[in-house]
């Protein structure tokens, strides 16, 4: 594509070729940056997928790990899968109602200065590193009392809370005011309007936000290191015990020198990544659809 300048008497062309060269150089760099970004993702996902896929087998889900195994007896990570389900489930059960209530308060009741102030605090809470949250729950609940899945879930819930609150707030703001006014105008009390009219209308968006929050914490390792990491190899569903989780299992396996451990780490990582990607993409797709529906367009 050799675009030429104009030529003619009295026309200004000042350094156009050099400027065009600089422009092309910058465009090339931008293309390169995009290529790097896509390539990095490709390389990481490819590594996890190709190594994980080859090591994938049903044993992973059905067999427990064997401590210090010197034989080639089949082992898996069934305890980690069970534990992750329990802990993430509990965390969602804790964070979801609180997050919704916070959002309801800020969006429906709070005067503007409180809304911005508390909103700021929630954004700051979202920036607290996961490992600090882990230490916090450790000092608060674990010291002197021991680890348990519930405490791990509590740590994850703290990480989920700002997320759920923010997305719920945004969704509530999308619900047209006319809907609230119509209900209030009929004489329906404010609390009833909020619970029976506004929240159900926003339900789609809230679900989406929750799915995204779950995708985010399903892979979190740091908070669980201090709250639910000293575990046995038996598969347990008891939340009062410390349960193994997939991220922590991957973490421990990755530090081991045994290549068989690495293999199981890749396989578990593959499943984890699949779940997270699937949840994220589904949630994003749902989000665009439900946003339109909620706003009534």
């Amino acid at each position, binding site marked *: 594509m050799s675009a030429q300048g104009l030529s003619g008497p009295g026309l200004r062309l000042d350094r156009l070729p050099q*400027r065009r060269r*600089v*422009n092309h150089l910058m*465009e090339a*760099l*931008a293309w390169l*940056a995009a290529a*790097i*970004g*896509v390539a990095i*993702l490709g*390389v*990481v996902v490819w*590594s996890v997928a190709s190594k994980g896929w080859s090591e994938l087998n049903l044993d992973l889900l059905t067999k427990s790990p064997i401590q210090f195994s010197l034989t080639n007896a089949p082992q898996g990570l069934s305890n980690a899968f069970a534990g992750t389900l329990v802990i993430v489930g509990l965390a969602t059960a804790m964070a979801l109602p*609180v997050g919704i*209530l*916070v959002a*309801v*308060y*800020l969006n429906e*009741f709070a005067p503007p200065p409180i809304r911005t102030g*508390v909103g*700021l*605090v*929630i954004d*700051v*809470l979202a*920036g*607290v*590193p*996961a*490992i*600090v949250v882990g*230490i*916090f729950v450790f*000092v608060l609940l674990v010291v002197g009392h021991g680890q348990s899945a519930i405490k791990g879930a509590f740590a994850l819930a703290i990480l989920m*809370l700002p997320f759920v*609150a923010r997305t719920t707030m945004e969704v509530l703001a999308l619900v047209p005011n006319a809907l609230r006014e119509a209900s209030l105008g009929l004489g329906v*009390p*404010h*609390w009833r309007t909020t*619970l029976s009219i506004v929240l159900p209308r926003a339900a789609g968006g809230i679900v989406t936000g929750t799915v995204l929050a779950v995708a985010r914490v399903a*892979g*979190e390792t*740091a908070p669980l*290191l*201090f709250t639910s*990491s*000293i575990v046995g190899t038996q598969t347990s569903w008891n939340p009062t015990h410390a349960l193994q989780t997939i991220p922590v299992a*991957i973490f421990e396996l*990755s*530090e081991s020198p045994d290549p068989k451990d*690495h293999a199981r780490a*890749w396989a578990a*990582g593959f499943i*984890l990544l699949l779940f*997270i*990607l699937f949840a994220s*993409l589904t949630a*994003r797709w749902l989000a665009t659809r439900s946003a339109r529906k909620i706003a009534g367009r």
Partner: protein
Amino acid sequence: MSAADVTAPPTRRPFTGRRVRFGDVALQVVAGAAALGATVLVGLIVWKLVDGSHLAISKYGLGFVTRVAWNPVIGHELYGAGSFLFGTVITSFLALLVATPIAIGIALFLTELAPRAIQAPVTALVETLAAVPSVLIGLWGILVLGPVLRTDIEPWLHSGLGWIPLFGPPSSAGASIFTAIVVLAIMILPIVSSISRELFLGVPPELKEGALALGTTRWETVRGVVFPYARGGVAAALILGLGRAMGEAIAVTQVIGGGVGIHWNIFGTGDTLGSKVAESYQGASTNLQSASLIYLGLVLLVLSLGANIAAQVIVRRVARRHGVTRGGHA
């Protein structure tokens, strides 16, 4: 309808006047309590960390923050955050340095150059990178990236640029600060990129048209109009990325190798505040060590709160400035 009907007083409707409904109060109290709890949580976190580390705070005071030492040997115990603070600062800043040009390049590409067909897929791909859990990036870092860096890149850089203290001899351990920097850069790339992208999209098109109509190239318009307009927001994005890098513990601890002491060689091993804490999750041997580890967490918390609050302040200030639109009076 007689005149009498018109002048008759209106029948009294029940529930006139302000009556406080139980349901309204109940919902407001419960929801307000949740909001209060969330607000208090940040303060609670700070307080609990101070509480948990008070043994170390009372013993070492603020000098802990800069002391370069970590000796758990009983009888000679001495702890300090200095080595790890240095590690956190150097890894985070260098990661930001590496990630920023690529992230801004991606954002510019998506807003100015990409053909419509690939805009959405590339945007989704870059944002998907943010969804990959840190433990997986760390796993990839240990088993894939680390060996490549150790056997190929680091020796090559050392032979060419070894006169710069940053590029000293590669460690034999296979783990290095450099690997941690690359891993962190990968993790903060999506954040900086997607915030920058939204900022660039927010530049009013008439400003760009005005610049292009003068006969400037696309790059000149970006440099003269888009960048200055988005400057504040990009600063906030960078600070947020920095905060994220500082707080990352898992992926860093997997690839950084561990070690105490301040040295500039990024091909050697080291530790950051986060990675040191994560490394010791299996337990501390003494109460003092435990308290010192929590003290490390406290230092990290202060750093990332600082970064986060700074970013939020900038965001709100920029939003206010751009909210003031063209000219006062006609």
